[in-house]
């Protein structure tokens, strides 16, 4: 986070307007792998006592002390041999996400000199409550523990919940613990922010699919870590990694994994697969591997460095020894140098950071829609920085596979990192609008997002299914003008439209509500959501409507005119002008979308509806897609 907040306009210190009193009363619940309580990012220095509303406890286990920053801790991980029962972070992940959302501002932080800057959360004055559900012992996070964490976090009166956990795909609500917990959180006015998943760039991989969850995709920022490789013939190629190891530019002999094995076939040897490399052939050399996956294998066999190839060269990772990950072309450059040189040599340099003009671009790994459980709800909702984020870490966990180092700050990548960025923005927003409901917070962030375009990256061909409404813009989100509200009863009606009836609905809603005939007939796409999405049959003409209602949260009165930008969709908005004469006044409108019919290979068409009063610009994506 040494650069991500500046990148999106949330400047450090006094350069950003804050409501410090309310911010200090804000509590962010972090459901993750626990926390490293001794980190400077979670120091309680300068904080007053916990907010009066706080109902939680500090039960972090032995040798675990809370403070006035880290005000709460609980753990739900099963008792396991060799693992102390505690809320302490054995994975580094929970410390990283907690500090991204609400960590103190800590100056002069770097990863061995790399990425130097001030690490801080979105709301440094806010408090943190930790709910540990993940541990290496269970190799992940148990869903019965996740549900218990929600049960406590809601009752403890946190203001927001950030959870960077998920499955490989969506599940029906009644079997999805994060959707269940988030529903009850929403009913109590608590917004849940969830990572979209890292199964991209394939479509229909987003696992967080409920409309009452705020689902976050990941993108890069304008700071990138690069690692140069200097070949013996003087040529330099640029690769990606966060390489803190200094080899002082010394060149070492190069060997290709394929020719460094005496026990495996070419295919496995090229990938430096475990058990393939012959230490006699790699010791003291730089090994070329067709994947970064097994770099630690090369290290174990005595290599001094590794050069790897990766298709998705858009992310730099930490490795346990010097590695540079090259694009296909650059990798082939090295291979052809090797094939044309008697004693090929090269040097892998220490990484450096560069200014990356092409940002934000959605990350290749970020999970994509369409939503497999509710086709007419666009997921992910929003995009935030997730690649190469430097934040707090736990010295109880290695910064990379087979790494002997231990650090208090590290670089991590994933939608796990973008999720707490949005949690920080949501909390920032809430300090200016404490009474806003979860859906209003979500709407404000979505309708004021930076537009992202499909053209800037090879992985963006999924456009809104990749980046949702666009990239979060914290400053604009404070003044959205209009918001799309969806209350608990709107969501109950939504569930009626999905045939949740009788017993289930009554039990979930907790009151004797049952579906009216009209609700049962309601279409999911008519949930008052800040984006509009519809799945249609391929190759058939379509004409469909979306019903929406906006609430005025701008100045007293405003006249908003509708404008539709974007492509091939025929869109009609009625009425085209909304007169909102007072604060909190609501106005409804319909959007009618028609088209000739999507060819099966034409995945989708999208446009944007913008309501503007000359000051505010309330932008919503409209997406129509066909599946075979």
């Amino acid at each position: 986070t040494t650069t991500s907040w500046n990148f999106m306009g949330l400047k450090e210190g006094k350069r950003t307007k804050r409501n410090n009193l309310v911010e200090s009363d804000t509590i962010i619940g972090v459901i993750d792998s626990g926390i490293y309580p001794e980190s400077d990012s979670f120091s309680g220095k300068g904080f007053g006592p916990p907010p009066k509303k706080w109902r939680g406890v500090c039960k972090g286990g032995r040798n675990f002390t809370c403070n006035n920053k880290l005000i709460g801790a609980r753990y739900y991980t099963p008792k396991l041999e060799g693992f102390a029962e505690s809320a302490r972070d054995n994975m580094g992940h929970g410390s990283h996400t907690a500090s991204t959302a609400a960590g103190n501002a800590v100056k002069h932080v770097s990863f061995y000199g790399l990425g130097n800057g001030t690490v801080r959360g979105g709301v440094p004055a806010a408090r943190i409550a930790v709910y540990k559900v993940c541990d290496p012992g269970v190799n992940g996070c148990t869903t019965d523990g996740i549900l218990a964490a929600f049960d406590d976090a809601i009752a403890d009166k946190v203001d927001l919940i950030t959870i960077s956990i998920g499955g490989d795909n969506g599940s029906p609500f009644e079997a999805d613990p994060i959707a269940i917990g988030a529903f009850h959180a929403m009913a109590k006015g608590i917004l849940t922010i969830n990572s979209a998943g890292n199964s991209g760039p394939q479509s229909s991989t987003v696992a967080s699919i409920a409309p009452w969850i705020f689902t976050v995709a990941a993108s890069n920022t304008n700071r990138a870590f690069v690692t140069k490789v200097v070949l013996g013939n003087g040529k330099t190629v640029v690769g990606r990694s966060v390489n803190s190891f200094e080899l002082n530019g010394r060149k070492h002999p190069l060997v290709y994994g394929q020719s460094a094995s005496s026990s495996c076939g070419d295919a496995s040897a090229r990938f430096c697969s475990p058990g393939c490399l012959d230490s006699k052939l790699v010791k003291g050399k730089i090994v070329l591997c067709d994947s970064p996956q097994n770099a630690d294998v090369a290290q174990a066999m005595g290599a001094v460095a590794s050069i790897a190839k990766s298709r998705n060269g858009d992310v730099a990772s930490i490795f346990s020894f010097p590695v540079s990950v090259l694009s296909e072309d650059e990798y082939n450059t090295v291979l052809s140098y090797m094939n044309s040189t008697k004693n090929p040599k090269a040097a892998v340099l220490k990484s450096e950071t560069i200014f990356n003009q092409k940002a934000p671009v959605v990350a290749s790994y970020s999970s994509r829609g369409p939503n497999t459980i509710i086709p007419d709800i666009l997921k992910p909702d929003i995009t935030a920085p997730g690649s190469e984020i430097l934040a707090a870490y736990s010295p109880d966990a290695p910064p990379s596979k087979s790494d002997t180092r231990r650090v208090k700050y590290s670089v991590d990548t994933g939608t796990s990192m973008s999720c707490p960025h949005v949690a920080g923005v949501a909390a920032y927003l809430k300090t200016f609008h404490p009474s806003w409901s979860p859906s209003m917070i979500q709407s404000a962030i979505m309708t004021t997002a930076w537009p992202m375009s499909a053209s800037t990256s090879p992985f963006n061909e999924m456009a809104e299914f990749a980046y949702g409404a666009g990239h979060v813009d914290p400053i604009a989100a404070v003044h959205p003008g209009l918001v799309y509200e969806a209350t608990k009863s709107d969501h109950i009606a939504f569930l009626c439209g999905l045939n949740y009836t009788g017993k289930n609905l009554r039990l979930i809603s907790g009151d004797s509500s049952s579906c009216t005939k009209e609700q049962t007939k309601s279409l999911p796409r008519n949930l008052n959501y800040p984006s509009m999405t519809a799945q249609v049959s391929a190759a058939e003409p379509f004409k469909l409507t979306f019903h929406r209602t906006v609430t005025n949260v701008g100045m007293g009165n405003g006249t908003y005119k509708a404008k539709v930008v974007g492509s091939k969709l025929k869109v009609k908005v009625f009425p085209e002008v909304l007169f909102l004469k007072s604060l909190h006044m609501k106005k409804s409108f319909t959007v009618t979308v028609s088209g000739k019919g999507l060819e099966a290979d034409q995945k989708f068409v999208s446009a944007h509806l913008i309501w503007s009063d000359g000051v505010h610009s309330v932008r919503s994506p409209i997406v129509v897609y066909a599946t075979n």
Partner: protein
Amino acid sequence: AENEQYKQVYIVYMGALPARVDYMPMSHHASILQDVTGESSIEDRLVRNYKRSFNGFAAWLTESEREILASMDEVVSVFPSKILKLQ
């Protein structure tokens, strides 16, 4: 027979907490478990209760016990506890 006795942790989701002030979630969960398992002590079965913000519990159950629970009026759904991943 072995299959029949195979147990795994299931989450029994019972929806929102009833508004009745006299409702005691933990004793309700215990009595449901005793009924379904036929065992008076549920200590080895119960993994945890959900009782503060919504209603339910997690327990070691066989498949047939799961089916009985899923059909009960006060139960919304019964599904296996799984391992999710950090992202």
